[in-house]
């Protein structure tokens, strides 16, 4: 009986596919193909080496590109067109991995520190592996825990702020966050744990980078939309057609990050708990192209409906701030 239930559930598990995923991956593969093929031609023309060598060369070039921070960024503007692309693909995960590695490389280590075997990252929280990367390193430092702790705090990396401290048995720990965060990231931090190891200190550093999933191309407001209807429970609806208000709401929608999967703690209290709706349409009588429903409470999630389809949930803080002002 349970076997049947499992089989039946798994058979239907593909119903949760994002419709736009196929097109997103196709665009990424096409760009990757262009990068590979263009470079392969160059190598073939200059040296006539076999294709396999061309691929090896591309691998080296791609690695260099990653190190140089070249990435693929495709963003869709309000009129739906892709406005900026470069040719070397670097997925958000690869960019996050590079940032995590940099956070560890930039640590100013106490004098005499030697590399030690790093433990594997441990998933204490429910970090979503599709939007989180972690990297660890460890060292043996020839000084006491207190001295090593003092040194690390006195030589903190530029841009890193200590946000939490603690003690673990005879050891110490602290967390430093990168501030301000680069666009597209939800968090970038390093946890440092110092534990006594004889007369020395064992230092472990774990960098953790969380990025916002990219917004699907279909989730943008068409350029023809010039009217926004805002609704809040019993307070009814308000229609906005003035360009500054409409454009501000569109900009806030476009810049809202995709909500992260998994469990997050958010303040549940709100002065005006309830649900707001924003409808973006071409005219007051037209069917809305995009409907955004924002919950004022919890993580301020904004459910998005584009035409007849649900799009990924966004964080609606900025939209919420604006729409509250319409009713309170």
């Amino acid at each position, binding site marked *: 009986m349970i076997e049947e239930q499992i089989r039946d*559930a*798994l058979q239907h598990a*593909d119903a949760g596919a994002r419709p736009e995923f196929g097109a997103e991956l196709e665009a990424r593969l096409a760009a990757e193909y262009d990068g590979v*093929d263009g470079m*392969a031609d160059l190598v073939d023309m200059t040296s006539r080496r076999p294709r396999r060598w061309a691929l090896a060369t591309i691998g080296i070039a791609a690695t260099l590109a990653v190190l140089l921070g070249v990435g693929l960024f495709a963003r869709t503007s309000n009129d739906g067109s892709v406005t900026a692309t470069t040719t070397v693909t670097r997925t958000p995960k690869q960019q996050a991995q590079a940032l995590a590695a940099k956070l560890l490389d930039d640590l100013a280590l106490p004098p005499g520190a030697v590399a030690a075997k790093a433990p594997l990252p441990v*998933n*204490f929280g429910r970090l979503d592996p599709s939007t989180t990367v972690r990297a660890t390193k460890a060292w043996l430092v020839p000084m006491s825990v207190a001295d090593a702790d003092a040194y690390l705090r006195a030589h903190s990396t530029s841009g890193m702020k200590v946000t939490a401290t603690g003690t673990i048995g005879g050891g110490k720990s602290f967390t430093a966050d990168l501030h301000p965060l680069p666009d597209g990231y939800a968090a970038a931090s390093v946890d440092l744990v110092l534990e006594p190891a004889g007369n020395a200190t064992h230092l472990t550093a774990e960098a953790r980078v969380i990025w916002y999933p990219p917004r699907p191309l279909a989730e943008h407001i068409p350029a023809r939309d010039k009217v926004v209807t805002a609704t809040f429970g019993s307070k009814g609806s308000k229609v906005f057609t003035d360009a500054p208000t409409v454009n501000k709401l569109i900009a806030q929608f476009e810049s809202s990050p995709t909500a992260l999967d998994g469990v997050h703690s958010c303040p549940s209290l709100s002065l005006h708990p309830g649900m707001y709706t924003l409808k973006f349409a071409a005219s007051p009588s037209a069917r809305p192209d995009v409907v955004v429903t924002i919950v004022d409470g919890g993580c301020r999630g904004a459910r998005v409906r584009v035409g007849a389809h649900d799009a990924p949930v966004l964080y609606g803080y900025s939209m919420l701030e604006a729409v509250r002002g319409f009713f309170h």
Partner: protein
Amino acid sequence: MTDRAGREAFLERYRATQPAVHAYLLRACAGERGRAEDLTQETFSAALVAWCDGRNEQVTLPWLLTVARNKLVDEYRKLDREAQRLPNAPWAREQSHRDDPAHVLECIRALPPMQRAVIALRFVDDLPVAEVARLLHKRAGAIDSLQRRALATLRTMLEENAQ
């Protein structure tokens, strides 16, 4: 084949096979979308490398599904190594009170990685125990045991939910 024709042929092959590969990975990941998307991308990145290396005849749906399955197994083995380091594995699920397939999937996702792998390979791929054992580098007896434990855990979770 010119480069443009090669590119178009690759993308055509992608379009013809991606839905099946992604659907397989979604089922094998018990509907865990982020993980299934990552593995689908890795599968087609491997396909692109094979294609550009002149092995385009190799890039067929059965080959892609084999690559996808191997990537899935690698993923669960990696998760299992990480889980071994935890005194209490954090595979706790969120409380849910739905009596539908979505709840069964949620319970499957709450299983430890190796048990999830066995469920995927036995119930999605319909592989015999010996083949699952070969893929997961374990003995057949260990696979039986993992499957029994997974079913017992799922039964308990679903019964708890029904109360």
